[in-house]
């Protein structure tokens, strides 16, 4: 059996007349770590948001963990249980404590008991190194701590795939490292990860494959060394020149 975490075939997405994703084909192996980069408006965030259907697609097929997302029924719910997501702006629930943020979805969606959900939550808060913040509200935490809570919250659903949508772009520079370290730990444990990020150090350290997108198309993809040292496409060469 081939262990494919995600299969995307001929995926097209439009915003009105704007063609955001053009015939995207992408296959992700289980345990693979992929970094997606590209200029703003290139469709990289849209791409990962189609994987848990935060964005519906107009045509094509997406299969996540052997569940066909586009087939309807409660497939979307099943896929979302299996796919965690971390956002640029954290999106923690401000009216709940850190612990409540972490137990809500396991209790409501996975129907886990409160005792079990809280035990799991404390375990993951420990792993992102903020167990002592469990009873605080998000506004009482720094940006880096909030993003680590967001990662723990997603992990509490015990997902098999994690999506990161520019997880460090809204952080002050001194907080970027703590979040990246958390992500690197996760990568080392074998989590399947898709990260939209411009943190090239992170890409070099953990990515199996780096993807460059421009104007809704996957322009180039390669292992990090080849990607950074021998970029083929001219637009990628320009892009790497700008962010270096």
């Amino acid at each position, binding site marked *: 059996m081939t262990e494919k975490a995600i299969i995307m075939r001929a995926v097209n997405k439009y915003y009105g007349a704007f063609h955001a994703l053009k015939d995207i084909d992408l296959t992700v192996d289980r345990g693979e770590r992929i970094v997606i980069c590209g200029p703003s408006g290139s469709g990289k965030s849209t791409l990962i948001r189609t994987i*848990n259907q*935060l964005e519906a697609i107009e045509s094509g097929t997406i299969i996540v963990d052997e569940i066909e997302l586009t087939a309807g029924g409660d497939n979307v*719910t099943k896929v*979302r*249980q299996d*796919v*965690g*997501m971390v*956002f640029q*702006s954290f*999106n*923690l*629930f*401000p*009216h709940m404590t850190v612990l409540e943020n972490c137990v*809500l*979805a396991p209790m*409501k*969606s996975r129907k886990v008991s409160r005792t079990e959900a809280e035990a799991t939550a404390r375990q993951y808060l420990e792993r992102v190194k903020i167990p002592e913040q469990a009873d605080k509200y998000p506004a009482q935490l720094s940006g880096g701590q909030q993003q680590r809570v*967001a990662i723990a*919250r*997603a992990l509490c*659903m015990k997902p098999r795939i994690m999506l990161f949508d520019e997880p460090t772009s809204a952080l002050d520079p001194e907080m970027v490292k703590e979040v990246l370290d958390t992500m690197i730990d996760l990568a080392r444990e074998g989590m399947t990860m898709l990260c939209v990020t411009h943190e090239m150090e992170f890409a070099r350290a953990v990515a199996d494959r780096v993807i460059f997108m421009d104007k809704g198309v996957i322009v180039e993809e390669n292992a990090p060394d080849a990607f950074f040292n021998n970029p083929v496409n001219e637009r990628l060469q320009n892009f790497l020149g700008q962010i270096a």
Partner: protein
Amino acid sequence: MIREFTSAEVLFIVMAVRWTLILSAIAFLGGALGGLLIALTRTSASKGLRRMAAGFIQVFQGTPLLMQLFLVYFGLAVVGLPINPLLAAAVALTLHASAYLGEIWRGAIEAVPSGQSEAASALSLSYRDRMRHVVLPQALRLAIAPTVGFLVQLIKGTSLASIIGFTELTRAGQIINNATFQPFLVFGTVAALYFILCWPLSLLARHMEARMRRAITR
């Protein structure tokens, strides 16, 4: 024979306050249920539903409350129900309050950042759980002050029910005035009673608005 405006007359007017309160409570509770439905419909994913709710709001915001009262009052007879001023007033004010509260709460729901709903969706929460645990608790905080403000409008609005013959505060005043011919005194008393009902609520609304503003700027 002209009656004096004595304590008995004052008592008659004061006792009518309860009908103003009962009517306000029915309209507010009914309007809260209807308003929640309208607000959820108005923010739903379906374009058809959104348009329907918008149409409802426009009809009730675009016509005078008095016409709504008349239409429901005489409409009851058309659909074969007995003409009953309390029923007519309760139905008309409930519809009216549904439209206004629906619009207030729609605004509050839309003021909750879309990232909240997205994060909840990404965590595989159902629409019901997203609304109940994530969006509505945050919208509620934004909506409290304008909702109390609307309640004041609603209490004053119940005075129009006097025109279809429902004996609440205003109608009680008219009855006493017809007997005593002391309009200034009678309607002064009526107005004072409305003020006693509404003023604390206005203060409460203003207090909550100020607290809200501090919470936002913090």
